[in-house]
């Protein structure tokens, strides 16, 4: 089903001002990591920062000092190349020490450029072979149910991964198994390796597709913290007896206008001197 009625009022443990701080700091950590290597999927990281802020500082339950705590909500990063963004969130969540930022992408680092479960606390799966996150999430959700745990499994995947058949195998299966503890998050930034995603595979209209597959669907501006908190609250608390998806339309490079404005590209080139400029711009607009 798709939500069309106005959002229900929800109480929030953390104010949006605080979430804005978190999102700002996630962006900052990501830029610092990008600067270390002079490259990285920084445009995606800046675009998804608000979604990660809401996930880690509003929606999810976890223990920073015990990343494998059985009662935690699981967060599966299907898009391995977004690791720079998730590391930034894990650093902000104090699951990874901030001091490790300079090791990003280095030999023997716990922060390799593509996310892998064996390397990093809080990284639940090895992503990167795109289209695997949602299938794995099905098994995790079934397992959580078998153990009678009330935890949710969140899985973040990209619009490019909608090209993969396995995503749709999993979409049908989630509905078959009535996995109400599964929350999919799609980052629709409309850019994949060879160009704009909608031109590569006609995945729109996406909401009605998932709705037809038996999901509780919400589509929001993925850079609007209010919209995101409302959507995540509804995803968790709605009585729909099946899987839920939050389709997030995001803007690549968000928070650094000169990167946002740059010709859109899957792998954004940032010049050596531009990293510090990006940090200055970000800092100048930091939330109070």
């Amino acid at each position, binding site marked *: 089903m798709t939500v069309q009625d106005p959002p229900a009022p929800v109480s929030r443990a953390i104010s949006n001002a605080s979430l804005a701080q978190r999102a700002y700091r996630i962006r900052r950590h990501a830029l610092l990591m990008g600067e270390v290597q002079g490259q990285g999927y920084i445009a995606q990281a800046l675009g998804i920062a608000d979604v990660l802020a809401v996930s880690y500082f509003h929606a999810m339950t976890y223990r920073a000092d015990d990343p494998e705590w059985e009662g935690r909500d699981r967060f599966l990063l299907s898009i391995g190349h977004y690791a720079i963004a998730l590391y930034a969130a894990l650093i902000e969540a104090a699951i990874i020490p901030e001091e490790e930022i300079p090791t990003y992408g280095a030999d023997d680092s716990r922060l390799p450029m593509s996310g*892998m*479960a*064996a390397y990093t606390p809080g990284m*639940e*799966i*090895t992503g*990167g*072979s795109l*289209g*695997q996150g*949602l*299938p*794995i*999430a*099905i*098994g*995790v*959700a*079934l*397992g*959580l149910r*078998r*153990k009678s745990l009330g935890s949710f499994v969140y899985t973040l995947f990209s619009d490019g991964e909608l090209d993969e*058949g*396995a995503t749709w*195998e*999993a979409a*049908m*299966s989630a509905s*078959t*198994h009535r996995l109400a503890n599964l929350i999919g998050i799609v980052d629709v930034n409309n850019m994949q390796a060879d160009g704009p995603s909608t031109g590569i595979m006609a995945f729109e209209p996406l909401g009605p597709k998932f709705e037809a597959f038996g999901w509780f669907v919400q589509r929001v501006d993925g850079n609007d913290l209010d919209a995101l908190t409302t959507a995540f609250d509804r995803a968790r608390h709605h009585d729909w007896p099946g899987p839920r998806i939050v389709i997030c339309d995001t803007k690549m490079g968000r928070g650094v206008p000169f990167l946002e404005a740059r010709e859109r590209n899957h792998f954004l080139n940032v010049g050596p001197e531009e990293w510090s400029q990006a940090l200055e711009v970000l800092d100048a607009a930091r939330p109070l």
Partner: protein
Amino acid sequence: MRDKYRRPDLSQSGAARLRTSAMIASIADAQDETRQAPFGEALVKLAAERPEVVGMTADLAKYTDLHVFAKAYPDRFYQMGMAEQLLMGAAAGLAREGFIPFATTYAVFASRRAYDFIAMAIAEENLNVKIACALPGLTTGYGPSHQATEDLAIFRGMPNLTIIDPCDALEIEQAVPAMADHAGPVYMRLLRGKVPVVLDRYDYRFEIGRAKRLVDGSDVLFISSGLMTMRVLKAAERLATDRISAAVLHVPTIKPLDEATIVAEAGKPGRLVVVAENHSIVGGLGEAVAGVLMRNGIAARFRQIALPDAFLDAGALPTLHDRYGLSVDAVMTTVKAWL
């Protein structure tokens, strides 16, 4: 070269109708003692002791003997639909949560279609997923869509994956708990339906990673796995009546290979070493054994009984086993020509 425009000889059609290229064919000879669905029965037995064991399939429960488990433990059985990539991904997810999924499909689909999911979602993290696949090698006359003639070649290169190729019903029964006890992913080539019982005549117990000599002999050393062990045991008996003395070394674990035992047996001088496998001559047990022998400086006379590097014909299974050299008669003829 097959010519689809050449009409068949219809004068033989009565006899031809007696044979079938049906999907499910028995590998048992008429006089063989068999057991029904040894995998499914063993899994049910194991599940009684191991609550973390669950069963999953991609629309092939009936044809992989998992239906026995599904009936006994309906709440521990997951139907994933005809979606092998999802099957492997979801099995990885359940394993992450501490369960031991036994995931079943046909060997062609696991190896050809779901490889990347097995590699990245399961093997890269050494997760506890047990993959049991029916129709390994040439065990159906249905044609290349269902004949997994290169599954070992595909899977041998996958790090962390243990590969086993049991011979008979007894070995399957012993392999199921051994797979569960093993920490990490396992791929099993599954014989299903009425499966012959052969190994009860030998002092044998299945252990992952161990090869075992079942019969000793001085002229030929057969090194074999899976159903070919049945065939070479019969061949060895019949060769004895021709005063040819053949030993049989059964190698049910293709990876990791029991190199020490293979080296010890093949290193004994004077025997023709014949590796017999229900698999393409490319990339299976034969080439694995050859590599072990070369690395250990053993220059034995070495031959392979294996399927050709080809997409095989459809037809009745006994016809095909004769045609491609896997039948007892074919093994006898081949080996005698080499001696």
